[in-house]
C-alpha cells in the first residue's frame, strides 16, 4: 500500500485509532485515549511518541487536584495527514 497520501505512521491500527479519536475534538486526556483504545499506558505512550516524532500530535500538561494530566491534540500537519489518509482509504475502497 504505497501511495503519496497513504501514511504508514498513521495507518498502524492503534495510531489510526488515536488520530481518529483526536480528529473531531480539540484535546483529549491520556486516560481517555487509553480507555477508548484499550491498551496499556506503556503501549499508548510508545504510539504517541511516534506520532509526536512525526509532528502529528502534541501534548499539553495541566494539574488537576495536584495530579498532572496530559492532554493530546492533533497538530495542523497531523490533521491534514489524517484527512489525506482517510481520503486514500476511501479511494482504495471505492476503486475496487
Amino acid at each position, binding site marked *: *500500500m504505497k501511495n503519496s497520501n497513504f501514511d504508514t505512521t498513521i*495507518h498502524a*491500527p492503534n495510531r*489510526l*485509532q488515536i488520530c*481518529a*479519536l*483526536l*480528529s*473531531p*475534538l*480539540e*484535546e*483529549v*486526556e491520556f*486516560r*481517555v485515549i487509553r480507555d*477508548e*483504545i484499550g491498551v496499556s499506558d506503556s503501549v499508548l505512550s510508545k504510539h504517541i511518541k511516534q506520532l509526536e516524532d512525526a509532528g502529528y500530535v502534541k501534548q499539553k500538561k495541566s494539574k*488537576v487536584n495536584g495530579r498532572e494530566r496530559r*492532554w493530546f491534540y492533533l497538530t495542523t500537519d497531523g490533521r491534514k495527514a489524517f484527512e489525506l489518509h*482517510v481520503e486514500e*482509504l*476511501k479511494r*482504495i*475502497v471505492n*476503486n*475496487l
Partner: protein
Amino acid sequence: MTNEKNHLKSKEAQDALNSIKEMKYAGLRRALPIPVWMGTFLALLIGTQVALLGAGIRTYNTLLIVLICIMSIAIINKNRLSGVTERITLSKKAIIISLVCIISSYFILIIAGQYLKGTYDYNWAPYAIGVLVTLTGLSIMVSTRASYFSKFGKDKI
C-alpha cells in the same frame, strides 16, 4: 491473484475506515454538549437578571451573579472532567466578535428595559425582554445540541 490482492487491500481499507468511524463516535460521545437542565438554568438566570436590572430591582443581583458564575464554572469543569474538550471551528476573530456582540446586547437590553419603563411607563417591558433573553438562550442551546447530535448521523466516512 491480482483481484484477490486488491480485494484484500480494499477489505483492509474498509476495516480501517470502520475503526476510524467507531473512534470518532467514541470521542464525540465523550464530548456531549452541556445537559439540558444546565443550559436551561443558565438561560433562566441570565433572563431573570436582565429583567430585574431592567426593572430597577437590584436586591437579587449579587445572588444572580454568584449563581451565573457557579453555573459557568460547573459547565467548564464538566468538560475538563470528561477528559475531552470540544473542537471549536470558529476563528479567534469570530469568537471575539461574538463575545462583543453578546456582552453589548446584554447591556443594551437592560438599558432598553429601563428606558421603556422610565419613559413610557411600560412596566412589563423589562420582564418581556427578560423572557426574550431566556428564550434566545434556550434556542441557542437547543440548536447547538441538535447540530451536535446531527454529526452522528451525517458523519459518513
